[in-house]
């Protein structure tokens, strides 16, 4: 339970919620090169899942507009990925690969969907937490872009994405 509370998305969840989520998750260890999800693949399949990184590092890559692939960022313990696909079933926006040995806690989409019937309150709180995270990301980026427009200087935006 204390492990799950380290994840910012889950920090406001009650002990009871985290205990139940912990019971629904499966801990797995993967080796370097393991592909957790692939850019462009549908996220709506029953094999879709949310991954919490407990140990190790993953690399997030995506096709570059000018060709080839680029590492967008690395993620490590305390980070999670796959949350939007878990909720919406959209297409994956990036490929996530293990950079070394990685330990994750996995919540499968099928299990999450069943949670709606078993504990609808927790299901809704989880949806709201993901929506809040996205709203915060958009608001931060909007403020950065707005400031760049006001000053006529795109530098801070360019730096953020390079």
């Amino acid at each position: 339970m204390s492990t799950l509370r380290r994840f910012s998305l889950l920090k406001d969840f009650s002990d009871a919620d985290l205990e139940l989520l912990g019971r629904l998750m499966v801990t797995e260890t993967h080796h370097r090169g393991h592909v957790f999800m692939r850019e462009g693949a549908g996220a709506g399949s029953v094999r879709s899942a949310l991954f919490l990184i407990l140990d190790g590092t993953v690399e997030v890559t995506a096709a570059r507009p000018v060709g080839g692939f680029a590492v967008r960022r690395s993620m490590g313990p305390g980070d999670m990925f796959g949350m939007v696909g878990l909720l919406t079933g959209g297409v994956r926006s990036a490929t996530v690969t293990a950079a070394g040995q990685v330990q994750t806690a996995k919540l499968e989409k099928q299990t999450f969907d069943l949670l709606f019937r078993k504990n609808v309150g927790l299901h809704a709180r989880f949806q709201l937490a993901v929506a809040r995270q996205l709203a915060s990301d958009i608001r931060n980026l909007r403020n950065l872009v707005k400031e760049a427009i006001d000053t006529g200087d795109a530098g801070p935006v360019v730096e953020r994405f390079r």
Partner: protein
Amino acid sequence: MSAISTLLVDSLGEEGAATLAPHFERVQVAVNEHVFTDGQRAARVVFVLSGSLEAAYDSDGSRVVLGQVGPGSWLGEIGFIDWGPATATVLATEPTELLCIHHGQLLALAEDHPAAASVLLRHITRVLAERLQKSKSGILRQIEDEEFVVEPVEQTRGWLSRTLSWLVGASEAA
């Protein structure tokens, strides 16, 4: 709500629209009336049934139009979720009819009508994720060229404004 809008069905699917429709308030908006004002709290999400709206922001005292928003569009998701200030000014350019749900209804909806809350949150999550992805991709397309150089200010403001319109949902005009 007497009849479920076909636009709402197009947006949420038949089951989702039927589940959520009873929880909307129908609102008429007059020309030049603000639906959202940049920087002011307006914790409601709206769905445009008819009419036309304009999204804009203020920069150095001037109003810069980001785009038109028409029937079938959603607006206000961010403030609805985080109860923060509006990210742009949105006003009606034609008599407009909206469906609204206020932030205060969300928790009650989650408690009393979880299926409706789930439909709404799933939709908002999808919309926000798409906007964020589209905006990030647009920025990357702009800057990822190895030969990217600093452009004249007006050109820079052009692509930044386009990005801003994606972020606030002003480019989803019908």
